[in-house]
């Protein structure tokens, strides 16, 4: 597949690895924010290749993992109403709320449909005028334009049975929260390449200036990740810190203004609770007044049950990079992908699930072999 295979080329990847080994005079600690990057790093064994040279802390880049309990509980209640279809990305289905997941709710008779795109939810609303169709809108800034487009189209078609359960989050405020924390060990960030595809990277300049931490916009394939890591190492070695863009083929410096406009028409920034973090100021978005009629919360006000608080999941510490998944006592024992205690073990992007999947159920060195 063009523009995918070339960036998985093992020869190019090994050359970059060699460059990184040459460039690093001491070990460095990096954080990749995006769950898709975590998934790719572990799947291709890049973290193992860099052992001793670069430590990769996996950040809270899994929007599924940081979706608050209240939102999941609300989604479960909605789908059980009888007159409502809850439409969601597949990623959310197994994440436990305080009373079970959407999959559990479906087993109990809830109406839950998975879709590949929010636009499919609009289609479902059109096809089922007898039902209320609620789309569970999770995701970072990469996904927000797709939901915004769905709202525009629903408005154009004057659909009265379509609404959103808004849980979109913004990456930058989370990065700020991590960089500002007293025990922050992160020396450079790999910024989420597809988020920057939409937003651009201008907002990272003040971040770098304030925290004196390099930010490098990075893609997802092995070659992209290694390029981003190499750039971080070079900056850290030279002490010349700045915003760099190593994913220019997709993430142009100014992002996608058309997508940004579609989003700002429909959404505005707001404070939002992140699961495991508490409220992050300006950490999310909400529907603007002109589109408030598409908000599921006022539409279904009165359905809410109190949130139960499970205490065993250390997602907060994992998501902030304070502990590795394997340091959690429940990892691999009471908490596995089949019986997850919290979100990071469910989502395929969650740090815990990625560890379980690619590093085996115990953190031991992976096998190496010279090709």
């Amino acid at each position, binding site marked *: 597949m063009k523009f995918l295979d070339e960036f998985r080329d*093992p020869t190019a990847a090994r050359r970059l*690895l060699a460059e990184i080994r040459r460039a690093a005079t001491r070990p460095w600690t990096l954080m990749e924010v995006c769950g898709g990057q975590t998934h790719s790093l572990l799947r*291709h064994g890049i973290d193992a290749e860099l052992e001793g040279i670069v430590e990769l802390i996996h950040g809270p880049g899994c929007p599924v993992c940081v979706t608050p309990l209240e939102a999941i509980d609300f989604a479960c209640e909605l789908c059980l109403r009888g007159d409502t279809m809850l439409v969601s990305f597949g990623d959310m289905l197994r994440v436990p709320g305080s009373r079970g997941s959407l999959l559990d709710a479906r087993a109990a008779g809830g109406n839950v449909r*998975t879709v*590949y795109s929010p636009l499919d939810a609009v289609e479902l609303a059109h096809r089922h005028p007898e039902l209320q169709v609620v789309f569970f809108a999770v995701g970072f800034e990469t996904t927000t334009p797709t939901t915004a487009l769905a709202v525009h189209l629903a408005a154009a078609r004057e659909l009265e049975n379509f609404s959103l359960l808004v849980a979109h989050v913004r990456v930058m405020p989370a990065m700020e929260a991590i960089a500002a924390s007293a025990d922050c060990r992160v020396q450079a960030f790999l910024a989420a390449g597809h988020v920057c595809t939409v937003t651009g990277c201008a907002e990272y300049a003040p971040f770098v200036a304030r925290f004196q931490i390099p930010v490098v916009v990075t893609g997802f394939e*092995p070659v992209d990740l290694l390029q981003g890591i190499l750039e971080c190492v070079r900056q850290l070695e030279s002490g010349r810190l700045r915003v760099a863009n190593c994913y220019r083929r997709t993430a142009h410096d100014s992002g996608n203004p058309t997508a940004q406009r579609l989003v700002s028409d429909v959404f505005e920034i707001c404070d939002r609770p992140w699961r495991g973090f508490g409220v992050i100021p300006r950490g999310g978005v909400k529907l603007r007044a002109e589109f408030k009629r598409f908000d599921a919360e006022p539409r279904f006000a009165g359905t809410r049950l109190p949130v139960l608080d499970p205490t065993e999941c250390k997602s907060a510490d994992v998501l902030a990079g304070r502990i590795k998944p394997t340091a959690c006592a429940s990892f691999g024992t009471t908490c596995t992908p089949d019986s997850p205690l919290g979100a990071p073990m469910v989502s395929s992007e969650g740090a815990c699930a990625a560890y379980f999947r*690619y590093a085996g159920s115990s953190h031991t060195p992976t*096998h190496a072999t010279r090709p």
Partner: protein
Amino acid sequence: MNQHLSSPSCPALSTTDGQQITLAHGEGGRLMRRLLRERILPALEGTRKHDEDDAATLPLVKGQCAFTTDSYVVSPLSFPGGDIGTLCVYGTVNDLAVAGARPLWISLSLIIEEGLGLPVLDSVLQSIAAAAREANVTVVTGDTKVVPRGAADRLFINTSGVGLLLSPPIAGPAELRSNDELLVSGPIGRHGMAVMAAREQLDIQPCPTSDCASLVAAVEALRAAEVPVVALRDATRGGVAAVLHEWADRCDCTLAIEEASIPVTPDVRGVCELLGLDPLHVANEGTMVAAVRPGFGAAATDALRKVPASAKAAIIGRTTERSISPVVVRRGLGRYLPLDEPSGAPLPRIC
């Protein structure tokens, strides 16, 4: 809120246009007998025994039998490459074939949801007949039930099958030893992607097509070539990864495969990339994993490639001494990394 008013219907007069299964069909009376005599049995003509007794009388066989059962609940009922009828025959036939048996007789039990259209039933029956003919098996007994609306998803089918165990027997995964060679009989992930694309109406062109087919000829080819087969398994739910994990569970080896050697058609690859799925976790219905003794991998692929259903057979790896991970895969960078066991049905992801 938009109100959709359905046309009023009077229950007493509400009949079907005669073109749907109703609860009355399942009551064992005249309608049921008509359904059997006029639809089900004629459709299976040529592939069934000619008595309608509850229990089929079968001849004694010389040697041991293999007996298997499976239920089929696929949705949608029909997808590119087959339907529930094709599946229910080939699925059971393949279970017997990979057990080292020649499939002989199958039973056919239908659980029909009230309201299923007769044309749909006819179509499924035709598929069953065609598959049975192709696989050279006889439908010897069966059952039909009708359940109220909502109690079944349109149509559920159970087939059980009996086959004659052939010689030499297949040793089984417990006998896997280091350096045994691992193969697949064809490109992987086709069935799961075909069903998902159809069910979710993903609007993919060309439509991913199921690999649903009989593996009898492929297994026979290995036997005829005298390849020492250690283990065989059709890679259904959970895909190739599930089979490898199951085998690793039964033996003392690690199963190591090479990503670059695994055959995947461009359309399956494209859909999997789009949805974030791994073809190794996706179901197949006409593709098997085989383990053969060291040095016989090439002979095995040669033999398999002469059969249409396994024309693209390939060696994908081997067994090694057991290390920490039971199943490992080598991708581009050269390391062997754990291949996780599938848990739950693969769901498309945005993350």
